[in-house]
């Protein structure tokens, strides 16, 4: 299987080589990626658990959602930036990794999830304070499943990425 030449170009950039061969940068970026999984995932998880009525039940839904949101976004930015750096460091290996492509599908589904549920659930959480709608619970459950899917695929990349080499 041959890969698009742009991947070879990326792999030969200074940044790609520096991350891949520098010793410390790769594990440090990987560590930050994991740390932001804890931050982004933690905030996402407790938002979802609140929507499902499983955690922080004595707090208003809107208070939990709105107050965790800035930290969730910070986590999302760090996880995305470090993820792009990790991709940049070994694009050819990832191109041949089935788990990587499944992960990208999950990533696209995360975008669709946001588009589908923003109007009814995320835009105005105060509406959910009196009653948590079925749609909000569905959004929460799907959000957790998608996030767990991203983690599992991410982990599997380390195990199947070397197949076609």
């Amino acid at each position: 299987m041959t890969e698009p030449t742009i991947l070879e170009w990326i792999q030969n950039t200074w940044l790609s080589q520096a991350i891949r061969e520098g010793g410390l940068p790769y594990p440090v970026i990987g560590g930050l990626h994991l740390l932001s999984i804890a931050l982004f995932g933690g905030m996402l998880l407790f938002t979802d658990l609140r929507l499902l009525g499983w955690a922080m039940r004595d707090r208003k839904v809107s208070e939990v959602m709105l107050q965790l949101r800035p930290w969730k976004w910070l986590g999302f930015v760090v996880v995305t930036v470090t993820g792009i750096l990790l991709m940049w460091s070994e694009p050819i290996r990832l191109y041949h990794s089935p788990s990587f492509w499944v992960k990208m599908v999950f990533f696209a589904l995360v975008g669709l999830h946001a588009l589908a549920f923003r109007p009814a659930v995320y835009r105005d959480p105060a509406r959910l304070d009196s009653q948590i709608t079925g749609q909000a619970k569905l959004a929460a459950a799907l959000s957790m499943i998608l996030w767990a899917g991203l983690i599992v695929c991410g982990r599997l990349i380390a195990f199947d990425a070397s197949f076609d080499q």
Partner: protein
Amino acid sequence: MLNSFLHWLVNSPWSHWINAYEWIFPAIQSVHFIGFAVLIGSIAIVDLRLLGFGMRRQSPAELAADLKRWTLLGVAMMLCTGFLMFSTDAITYHNNPSFQFKMTCLMVALVFHFTIHRRAVRPGAGPVGAKLAAGASLLLWTTVLMAGRMIAFV
């Protein structure tokens, strides 16, 4: 004594089971990762509140009470999955400097969490002490996580 325990772990039925299928180890690792979102997420919400960075409409004591059971669930998930992963290659892990460092930090983090940190979230705790405890807590858990990542590299 320790060596025979490590050998026993490596040859335990669960180690054989995990090693028998390629997908089990990454599956356990995934649960380990989800576990640290539960663990560090629940602790970070309280710590950020102690530092004055979020959830300001609730008191630290209220948040800590809300999240205590989730922190314990996170600890349980981490210890169970961590133990299973350790079992599969106990001798190698035992000799790995990053692993040794991580375990030391983990012990400190756990003791800290259930002693000093617990006191810092109580109503009437001094604000400066509480902030220091929150900062130390975030730093400790971050170190545990980063050291965990380094196990594969050192």
